[in-house]
């Protein structure tokens, strides 16, 4: 029997597979296709202090082995979440982590305080990396100083697991990772989407209403893997790897590169039942390679 449990700096996961924010709704959208209790956790749709309508349609463009999105954090606000959605999802037999975003440091702090009142939410993922909002979002995640400030402010009020989601749209992601580690982040998750764009040449118009958007899907995997490897070598806190993971083999690459857990994102759109299959595939790999526990895979890449 392979031990699948992961201790993510205090956050207990039954296996290393989480689902990525913005690709998994609130989990409810997926219960027709899979059993949520078979994965380590779900990171629910990004939440902000106030209701956001998001960006105008069109918000997506299919690209080779991937897609661009410009949803822009559409959500009904954290109070709606805590009053209406939380009661429906709190008893899921898995970790429910809430992704928190904001335009100002005060927004992040206030949202985190409201989430802290929800006893069955074991952690938040602080989104300092959304490329699709005009204010805040990625601007916090592209500067060490700003990233440190927002993490420090949230850390003061938020006592449970604080995961910080990093953007790849920076010169050196390890500097940002170190900055948030120094302010008390419990883990970092990476990567959020890569800033990209698409043009409809026949119409001579951008495909997205916002012109640019975030690229995700299988096409980003090599970049994400490289950044996870670099970051895992730069920080002591656990790294949660994501970016194009579409199979157990992909997930195992991220673990070997140094991730302690992984998130499945855009692949949920193609196969809504994929995340438990990835968890099973990781166990099968461990059996085949003689690993007693999944946690042994973290950083087990052989170099030289």
């Amino acid at each position: 029997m392979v031990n699948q449990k992961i201790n993510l700096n205090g956050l207990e996961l039954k296996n290393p597979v989480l689902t990525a924010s913005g690709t998994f709704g609130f989990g409810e959208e997926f219960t027709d296709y899979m059993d949520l209790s078979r994965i380590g956790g779900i990171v629910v749709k990004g939440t902000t202090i106030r209701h956001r309508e998001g960006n105008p349609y069109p918000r997506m463009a299919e690209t080779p082995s991937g897609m661009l999105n410009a949803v822009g954090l559409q959500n009904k606000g954290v109070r709606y979440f805590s009053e209406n959605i939380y009661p429906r999802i709190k008893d899921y037999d898995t970790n429910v982590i809430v992704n928190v975003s904001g335009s100002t440091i005060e927004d992040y702090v206030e949202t985190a305080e409201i989430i802290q009142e929800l006893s069955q939410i074991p952690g938040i993922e602080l989104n300092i990396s959304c490329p699709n909002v005009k204010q805040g979002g990625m601007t916090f995640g592209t500067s060490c100083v700003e990233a440190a400030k927002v993490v420090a402010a949230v850390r003061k009020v938020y006592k449970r697991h604080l995961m910080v989601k990093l953007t790849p749209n920076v010169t050196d992601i390890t500097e940002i990772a170190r900055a948030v580690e120094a302010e008390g982040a419990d883990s970092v998750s990476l990567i959020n989407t890569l800033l990209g764009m698409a043009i409809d040449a026949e119409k001579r118009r951008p495909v997205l209403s916002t012109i640019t958007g975030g690229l995700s899907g299988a096409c980003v995997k090599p970049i994400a893997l490289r950044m996870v490897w670099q970051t895992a070598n730069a920080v002591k806190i656990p790294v949660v790897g994501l970016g194009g993971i579409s199979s157990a083999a992909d997930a195992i690459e991220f673990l070997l590169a140094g991730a302690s857990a992984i998130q499945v994102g855009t692949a949920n759109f193609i196969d809504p039942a994929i995340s438990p299959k990835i968890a099973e595939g990781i166990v099968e790999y461990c059996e085949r390679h003689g690993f007693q526990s999944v946690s042994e895979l973290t950083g087990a890449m052989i170099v030289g």
Partner: protein
Amino acid sequence: MQKATSFILDLELTEIKSLNAQYVLMKFRDENPLPPMQPGQFAEVRVDGSPNTYLRRPVSINFVDIERNEVWMLIQIVGDGTKTLAKAQVGDKINMILPLGKSFTLPQPNEKVLLIGGGVGVAPLLMLGQQLQELNIPVSFLLGARSAGDLLELDEFSKYGTVYTTTEDGSAGEKGYVTQHSLLNTAAFNRIYTCGPKPMMLSVASYARKHAIECEVSLENMMACGIGACLCCVEDTTEGNLCVCKEGPVFNTNVLKW
């Protein structure tokens, strides 16, 4: 946990019929009884084989043949995805998630209903027509296309109601657009169901509003997930941005900002 209503299935292609250079009719079956499906719902179809068909393709449910345990889909060949799909061979298994989305609302008894379709948008109206006929509601279909060869499944539609047609070049039915058909000047309807190109639906919606007729449209916004998770396919409505895949694809025009 609630009972599942939609499923990921590998359905077997039992028949593929080329209707003209642009359209194919595909019929699929399963070993097990197909899940209940309602007119207006759709499937998210996986098209394997190319980096350019990364996401699933939303396809309307055209008809369900309960006796044969078959679901029909009408495909317009427009891009890489539908081109690949149309090359499938009888016996191939195609992966799809179905049924998805909300269906058309059924009329009150005694209501006079008109089903207006254009191009590949006629697809969901066949199943709707069949269901209305089962409820003993007389059905009129008003179907439009560029020319005679683009009018699809007329033999099928005529099983469930009276079929009126328009073509842009006048090669069949009345010449012009559906909204110019003389039927709209002579008959009074209580409810219109429509699906087709957006300019056509806008024009139908405006006719319906002018004559205070209840009108439901089926939208085809670009989608990624099809199950309400990604929030990409939203339509701006009186209730804010709503997912076409989950809150639609059928909407009453009263909630749309058309």
